[in-house]
């Protein structure tokens, strides 16, 4: 298409679509049973990850009973309000596969990549695998956030050189999600923004330039330019998405912008506040179908959480605090774990605040939650725990405690991938390779 005709076509498109489309606000948004939009489109199932650091202490963390109605030992007592929505997989064993144990690193990498790292991140993380498929239907293929206030706190990677950086400021995150560029699916009228049309049009020139550059650089750099090229296509897709009339969604009710970011402290209460704020935004982003993949890092693997008045941060505490002989565990380390588990319960509960049909958003979500070690004091990858939450559109049973009998945590990851529709024969490598779904949790 020559330039003149491209300009004419664009102008023609604009003239044709600038007429606002009135939408029937009072129509029932969903079908009768809440599993589909009014138009008949099935409600999407979203995949969410949650990560925290430093595991727990088996004697006060892992329930003694299995199956439904499992008991809640002290470190997970806060789960009472969400237990029936949470599956707890205990007694997992991350296999180092002959690699050295890179403290507070090997464990979480196994849970997210399926492979024990020799040094760097061995490949894409599980959310990235899914973002390449189910992420394509929404404006953002995935979103990543943290409660730590640190942009580098992420468990999500495209490859070793490309982390998905974490949103850390609630204000910035709000602006990205619900600021001027937000397209309210329930707005009474829809008119495509002509500036977005032009943006999308001129982006093609940048894409052409990128193709030129790809020809001039070496192989390793070409891979990076390819990745940049993919990013441009993603931007193009986002622009296209904003030019398309969205389906109305009853549950999409964004709150007002936060007044200010919480203070930058690492004390537990500040982090939990930031976690609640980021979670609230994330839940609404899912409810508004802006993304179907979301990653949240509550704390880093070497958690730097602070207990006010106690001189050691969480990680140091796990190594240096004496075991209380009477209690049988490290009381302050356990205090940190309990606060982390409260945050997990807050997280799960937040999905229940959005109605979707007869149920809540949580019914259409699968949350995959991981940590980095079994027992932090000794860095062991035995007795690790993994949790899931949500029913994944009715495919998954919840409220179960399951003994994984020293299987790799990738067994849970592989099951999650299957539930989310990734048609993979297996996931993980070496002794962490899993190819059997955990039927106990499937409906």
């Amino acid at each position: 298409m020559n330039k003149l005709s491209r300009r004419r076509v664009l102008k023609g498109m604009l003239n044709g679509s600038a007429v606002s489309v009135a939408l029937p606000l009072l129509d029932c948004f969903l079908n009768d049973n809440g599993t589909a939009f009014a138009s008949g489109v099935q409600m999407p199932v979203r995949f969410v990850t949650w990560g925290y650091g430093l595991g727990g202490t088996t004697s006060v963390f892992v329930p003694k009973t299995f199956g439904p109605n499992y008991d809640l030992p002290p470190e997970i007592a806060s789960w009472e309000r969400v237990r029936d929505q949470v599956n707890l997989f205990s007694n997992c064993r991350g296999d180092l596969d002959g690699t050295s144990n890179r403290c507070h690193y090997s464990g979480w990498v196994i849970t997210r990549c399926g492979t024990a790292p020799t040094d760097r991140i061995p490949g894409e993380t599980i959310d990235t695998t899914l973002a390449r498929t189910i992420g394509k239907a929404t404006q953002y293929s995935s979103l990543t956030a943290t409660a730590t206030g640190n942009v580098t706190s992420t468990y999500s990677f495209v490859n070793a050189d490309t982390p998905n950086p974490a949103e850390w400021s609630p204000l910035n995150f709000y602006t990205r999600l619900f600021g001027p560029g937000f397209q309210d699916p329930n707005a009474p009228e829809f008119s495509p923004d002509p500036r977005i049309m032009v943006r999308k049009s001129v982006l093609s020139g940048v894409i052409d330039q990128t193709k030129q550059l790809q020809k001039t650089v070496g192989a390793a750099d070409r891979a990076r330019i390819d990745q940049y090229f993919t990013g441009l296509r993603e931007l193009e897709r986002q622009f296209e998405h904003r030019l398309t009339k969205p389906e109305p969604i009853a549950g999409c009710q964004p709150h007002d912008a936060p007044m200010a970011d919480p203070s930058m402290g690492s004390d537990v209460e500040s982090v939990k506040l930031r976690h609640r704020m980021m979670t609230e935004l994330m839940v609404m982003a899912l409810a508004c179908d802006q993304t179907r993949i979301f990653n949240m890092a509550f704390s880093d693997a070497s958690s730097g959480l602070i207990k006010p008045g106690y001189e050691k941060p969480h990680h140091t505490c796990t190594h240096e605090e004496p075991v209380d002989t009477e209690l049988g565990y490290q009381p302050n380390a356990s205090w940190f774990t309990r606060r982390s588990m409260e945050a997990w319960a807050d997280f799960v509960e937040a999905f229940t605040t959005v109605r979707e049909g007869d149920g809540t958003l949580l019914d259409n979500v699968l949350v995959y939650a991981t940590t980095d070690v079994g027992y932090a004091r000794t860095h062991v990858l035995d007795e690790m725990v993994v949790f899931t939450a949500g029913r994944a559109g009715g495919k998954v049973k919840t409220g179960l405690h399951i003994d994984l009998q020293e299987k790799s945590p990738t067994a849970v990851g592989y099951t999650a991938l299957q539930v989310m529709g990734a048609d993979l024969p297996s996931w993980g490598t070496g002794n962490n390779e899993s190819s059997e779904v955990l039927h106990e949790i499937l409906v």
Partner: protein
Amino acid sequence: MRISPPEQQQNGCGSVRRLFALLVTGVVLGCSPQEPETRGTEPRVRLVTTDQYVNSMRYIFGAGIELRVEFPPFERTEGLLGNSAAFAGISSSQLEQFQAAAASVASQVVDPANREFLIPCKPADEHAADTACATEFLSSVGRLLYRRPLSGAEVEQFVDSAATGADTLNDFYAGLELALEAMLLSPDVLFIVDRVDPEPDRFGHLRVDAYSLASRLSYFLWNAGPDAELLDAAASGELLTDEGRARAVERMLASPRLVDGMRAFFDDMFRFSKFKTLAKDPTIYPQFRNTTAMAAREQTLRTVIDHLVTEKKSYLDLYTTRSTFMTPELATVYEIPSPPGWVPYTATPDSQRVGLLTQISFLALHAHPGRSSATLRGAALRETLLCQEVPPPPPNVDFSVLNNPDAHYPTQRDRVIAHLETPSCAGCHLIMDPIGLGLENFDGEGRFRLVENGVPIDASGELDGIPFEDATGLAEAVRDNPALPKCLVKRLYYYSVGGPTPPGTDRFAMLKYLNREFAEGEYRLHDLLRTIAMSDAFSRITQPEEAMQQTSLPPNVTIRQFALNTRTGAVGDDRAPGEENQRE
């Protein structure tokens, strides 16, 4: 293609160029060693950093451009984040941030209040496309943004984009804005690409072309893209001559923009990005706030710039100087009065505030939220300032001594003695703790103290066999440590060429040469910057396969892999992500 071993080749082109530089500055030296033959670096494709992006936008469009961007930081390679720019990938969400930044810049440029100054022409009709004005504006800013002239086709493409926008939106400036926004997203803007030419007088050898040389110089010294004058020198070919390069380097060293460049380098080398999330326990250190942390970072950067750039004093003396700057945010922790704003301040002769190590930036950054840490401080000194590797603790380390419920350690010295008496701990802790103990008169926020838990503090220790009694003695031991200047040389050289150079005897020879030059120049930063910027090694390019022939690496290990391994500690001196802050 092979080149001769370094010791056999001493062509000294860099030295000739350096001589020009000395003539330009009026400095005359006696006998000076010649630069050894090196292979140079692989051509780099570097992703711009947040600071480079902001610095460049403010240079091109004025200091009034508001930009609140924070692109994700890179991993650390050989001690510097900047060294990873040639490896870092770019995620979709990061590109989205670049798009948002581009939209913000472009809208400010065409804003009615700014367009009078920033756009050199007016359209015939503000409601229609204007090819002439769009061409004039986009080709001139494009040259600065691309760090080279745009080709005719490139200009035409952006002018066409502007016309598309103007026609669609019935607004010339809106069209120009969206064309500029697209230009700012271009790979030529976001990636700094080394383009290569043959060396004219050395058959078979390569160097960066004139525009890429301009970019290398500019990002090295100013942490921003080249200005118009530097691009002019590249266009005329002057920059490729010895005299022309010397003139350009001297102009850049004399420019106030050198401050931006050196602040960026030292901020990176000192790992000050950690200040963004540094927090202290408010119940233990109620006066240490986020603003205190930011002021501590600023104090050290001001001290460094004043000492090295303004006063042109020895790098070594930075570690014993009592001169700094003070502001009320810090004065509460230093426990001295201070007027508003930043004012010069000199510690009294009897004070233990001596050199950078006793500034709050070092003391607070390398401590726990609720207490000091001799181990963290010792490790930071080794790794950050002496370029020495301290291994991470072994995964099966026995913490039983520290976990002894009967243990009571009134002072940090008592605690670290437990480390040193435990064989599995002692190996590593011996190289950290005795140094850090010298700073025990400063608590976890950097406040001076004489006692801890009611027990007088013994701040004696030793650094590489040099005993000291307190922080003053430690400062002198650091100043006199031969690894101190070598570490700066190594960091600055790799930084200048975008990352570590291929390992081998020529790299060793080059570092040796730079170390000698630095010493002869009495450890003055300007001289080191000049020597690096004028060297052949700075502009020479090697092809990967040629580089491989010269290394002692196994044949199946590429240079890139080597660099990556260096980053993770498999070969060099850094640890994997997630392994930071694992010590004590």
